[in-house]
């Protein structure tokens, strides 16, 4: 079992870096229509999702909770211009699920944008939204988000789960990087990003618990920190997390003094915005893995005492 303090410090450092580099979470209102205005929404949505986990778990400490709240506020007020950028995105591409996906975590934290509300409800009625072609894991995400929004998921989550890679429990030695991300995200959506570990069906939990150590070992060895961080999140979502000590030690050791976590091997060098674009995700994931693992470790301690 890894030292809980070490796990906690990774998250605290990551959050300091995210706060210091919050300006990196920005949209490009003048983006070329060919590359798409919605392209840069993803980091903002991820930031909101993970900061909402930080609140929910309540183990991050008062400084971290405050930073998480301020980061979300910054994202809503500045990056999304009080939600009006979501509306603009939705008007640019009415059928795109991206504005909905970004809106949901803000909505769950009490932010509201009436026009987005109407758009989501309308889109949900459309057969076109249901028929929207996308990967099975993202389809599962959309169904889960519809449920969280208060709508009846179309298709149901059980139906959406079936064609995912993980649901078929295939040969574990075939897992490559992109499959590994499908696995981690499938677990995130099934567990509502770690809030509900019971959402992972027992058969899938057994499968993941059996093979996760081999995958963690592999991506630790390859120094793929972004993916390793997601796998550590998955570990924290299991009924019996291992809080893999070698992985956590290496993960903590690669974190820079300012809190940034490189995505692959070492920190890149170059223009600040370029560096941000490369490492914001791995640093967010570090905060996410840290808060969930800390929470699980404390639960285990409470149970043992």
């Amino acid at each position, binding site marked *: 079992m890894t030292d809980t303090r070490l796990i906690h410090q990774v998250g605290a450092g990551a959050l300091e870096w995210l706060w210091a580099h919050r300006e990196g979470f920005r949209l490009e209102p003048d983006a070329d229509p060919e590359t798409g205005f919605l392209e840069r929404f993803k980091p903002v949505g991820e930031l909101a999702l993970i900061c909402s986990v930080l609140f929910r778990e309540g183990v991050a400490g008062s400084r971290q909770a405050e930073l998480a709240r301020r980061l979300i506020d910054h994202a809503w007020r500045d990056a999304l211009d009080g939600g009006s950028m979501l509306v603009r995105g939705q008007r640019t591409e009415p059928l795109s699920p991206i504005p909905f996906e970004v809106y949901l975590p803000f909505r769950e934290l009490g932010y509201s944008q009436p026009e987005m509300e109407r758009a989501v409800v309308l889109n949900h009625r459309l057969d076109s939204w249901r028929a929207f072609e996308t990967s099975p894991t993202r389809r599962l995400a959309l169904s889960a988000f519809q449920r969280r929004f208060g709508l009846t998921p179309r298709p149901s989550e059980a139906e959406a789960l079936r064609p995912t890679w993980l649901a078929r*429990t*295939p*040969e*574990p*030695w075939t*897992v490559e990087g992109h499959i590994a991300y499908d696995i981690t995200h499938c677990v995130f959506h099934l567990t509502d990003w770690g809030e509900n570990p019971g959402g992972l069906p027992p058969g899938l939990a057994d*499968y993941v618990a*059996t*093979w996760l*150590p*081999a*995958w963690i*070992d*592999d991506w630790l*060895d390859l120094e793929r920190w972004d993916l390793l961080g997601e796998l550590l999140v998955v570990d924290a979502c299991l009924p019996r997390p291992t809080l893999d000590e070698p992985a956590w030690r290496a993960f903590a050791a690669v974190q820079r003094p300012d809190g940034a976590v490189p995505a692959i091997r070492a920190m890149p060098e170059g223009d600040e915005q370029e560096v941000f674009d490369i490492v914001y995700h791995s640093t967010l994931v570090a905060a996410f893995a840290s808060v969930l693992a800390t929470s699980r470790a404390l639960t285990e301690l409470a149970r043992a005492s």
Partner: protein
Amino acid sequence: MEQSGTSTRLQAAVQDLASGVVSVLRDGDHTRAVLPAGTAEAGDLALAAVRVLGADAVLPGLLSGATSDPAEVAVFRKAVEAYPPRSDAAPTVRWSHWGMARALRRLDPNSSSGPPDEPDTRWLDDASWQTLTHQLAVLAPLALPGESCAVSRLAARRPVDVARGFVRAVRRRDWRQAAGAGRWLTLLPGVPDTLGLESGLDFVELMGGQDPMVTLQVRAARLTRTGTLV
């Protein structure tokens, strides 16, 4: 340079020997001798190659139970006797030699020597699943159907760990280790079905099969599994 040349020649001799074993396993002609024949004069290099391959040098005879060519048994005996493990030898070296002594007893019922004493397995008591799998793969010649020893009993207690090691070896493209681990897994109870071992062995052979040391293990695993020769 001299040493490097010797090492290269030994590797080539081991590969040739492994290819010979693979060929016999494939053709099913288990009466055919693999070891260099005529070989009261078998050279040092040939004997060293037999020692490196260990009990797998006589694998066709062990799996089939057929009567072995006395000349072949004589060469094998010579290799067993020529390379006793030193007192400071690594556990895998001691176990590999023990496996050869066991094989010799099977092939030569007239052998006067009693069953060799088993080395201990203390070095694996607290081994991580990674180390365990690596060491078991080195000792793959001990993975024989119907044969029990302290190493095989220890492996049987950790099927999930060996299965994880197989996954790790495939991901690292360490085909020799994957093939050796796969061979053990065909013998172990309690291997998770989701491993997909049979396809996994085919994959290892497809990807690493140009190395006869890999093919040898995969074929041994397959024969163990189907029981063709047993």
